[in-house]
């Protein structure tokens, strides 16, 4: 390899891993700022001030230059480095569930949940539900649940109304299990009464 090529490769390597390091640091500091770790809360302001540098470079703030943001976000997405690697960390959260209470034309009720055909797709559906649980914005959360309800309505066009129940599932701890508790508990956090358009009106084929 020529010396020029060596230099180009070295610069690429430096930029690539500077970005990887910044993204990972940014995500770790995000966890620290929100007291999601075992580190005492009194250092919040320190983490916030440290986090300014990665946020600035990654254009992850409101006043960031749009062109810089476009380039950085485009590159880090393309390289697959837009997220840190804190999977199942710092703690494994409680799983969530979305249940639709469906009322039918003849007046009876039943309970449905979003359905996919295969286990691989089911894993993605689980991810989607978990992501919905992390959304702080109530309108955004409701819109996603409404879209999921619409797909259930498409499968059962005889439904006249849907109430969406969204909440967490707590499983017994190891000690509770040994003491005889075996059931999972669903704790409802949000209830949405959804007035959905008829599937035909939404352009869907039942």
């Amino acid at each position: 390899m020529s010396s020029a090529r060596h230099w180009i490769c070295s610069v690429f390597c430096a930029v690539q891993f500077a970005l990887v390091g910044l993204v990972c640091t940014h995500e770790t500091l995000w966890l620290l700022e929100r007291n999601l770790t075992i580190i005492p809360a009194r250092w919040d302001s320190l983490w916030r001030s440290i986090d300014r540098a990665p946020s600035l470079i990654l254009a992850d703030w409101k006043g960031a230059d749009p062109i810089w943001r476009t380039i950085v976000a485009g590159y880090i997405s393309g390289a697959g480095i837009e997220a840190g690697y804190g999977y199942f960390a710092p703690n494994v959260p409680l799983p969530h569930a979305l249940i639709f209470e469906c009322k039918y034309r003849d007046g009876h009720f039943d309970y449905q949940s979003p359905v996919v055909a295969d286990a691989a797709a089911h894993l993605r559906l689980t991810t989607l539900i978990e992501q919905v649980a992390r959304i702080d914005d109530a309108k955004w959360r409701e819109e996603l649940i409404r879209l999921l309800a619409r797909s259930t309505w498409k499968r059962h066009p005889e439904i006249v109304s849907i109430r969406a129940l969204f909440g967490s599932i707590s499983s017994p701890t190891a000690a509770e299990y040994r003491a005889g508790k075996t059931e999972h508990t669903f704790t409802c956090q949000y209830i949405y009464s959804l007035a959905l358009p008829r599937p035909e009106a939404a352009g869907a084929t039942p």
Partner: protein
Amino acid sequence: MAFLFAADSGRWLTLLRIGLGLVIISYAWPLRGDWNYLFGGTGRGLISRQLFEALASSQSPLIPRLGWLVTFCGYFGLSENFALSLAWALLLGAGCFLLVGFFSRPAAILAWFLQLAAAKSGGFLSYGADNFITIGLFYLMIAPLPDRWSLDQLLAHRRAANPDRLGFHRRLLQIHLCFIYLFSGLTKCLGAGWWDGTNIWRSLTMPPFDLLPIGLVASCAPLLPALGISICLLETSYSFLIWPRWSRRIVLCAICLMHAAIGLTMGMYLFALIMIVLNLAAFGPAEGELAEVLNDREARRKGGTLPAWYCPGPGWSNSLDNTRGSGEHGASFKG
């Protein structure tokens, strides 16, 4: 510089290509029944492709998405369903091509583009495995393809890449894995649940990862804290212990075993497969060959011949070129 451009035989690249081919097939095939439903537009699918594409577009219009293909097919009067099915078929085809090494680079670029587009258009439907597949495909796409054991090489007898360039691209993957495990380990260490076993218990008993009978997990409960701490230590120390020769095999075996266990006990097969592929490609075989290269460099100074793989194609000579003085490469190109 020497660290970044260590000569390599390129066997790792073959492993990465074949592994990613398998990963892409394992990614696309199980989704065949749900693909159009998962990525369907508003009112036609599970959620709304357009919604997530708008989100991705707001981050950067450069991010690939399936909507581009849908729009393109729309110009020819083809439906969204057709476009999505085409994307799925092309992705599966790219995976098969990667597996055998036929049109390796175009297949790698196509696989990267479609997988990334699916991950971005799927939005919240994407999870960690998608990220790692994108990382693997990104490095494969920019690596010096075709590799020596690909069908391309067999049919066309193309000149193989410079060993230093192969070494550089392998080094990128190695350093990236070190970053992955260092930060993964550190963030785990910051959670109390990894020190007392709660997180392991929760991971193994929460749906849909509860493949093991809860009674079996409960019977192993006293071991869970030790298991949690071991995972934290393994991941955090990976970046340091993977480099020395004495600890590399132990750490590599342990990390592959951990991923295999995650795949088998939690049903995260795709995640396990991609992580094992990346680890084996980065730190797996060719250890002996690296030593061989170093020995050959030493031999070159004294006069001798290079191994056949070091002089990969027509136009290359495997005679040692001492006229280049202390140059990096022993192989010379006559053409």
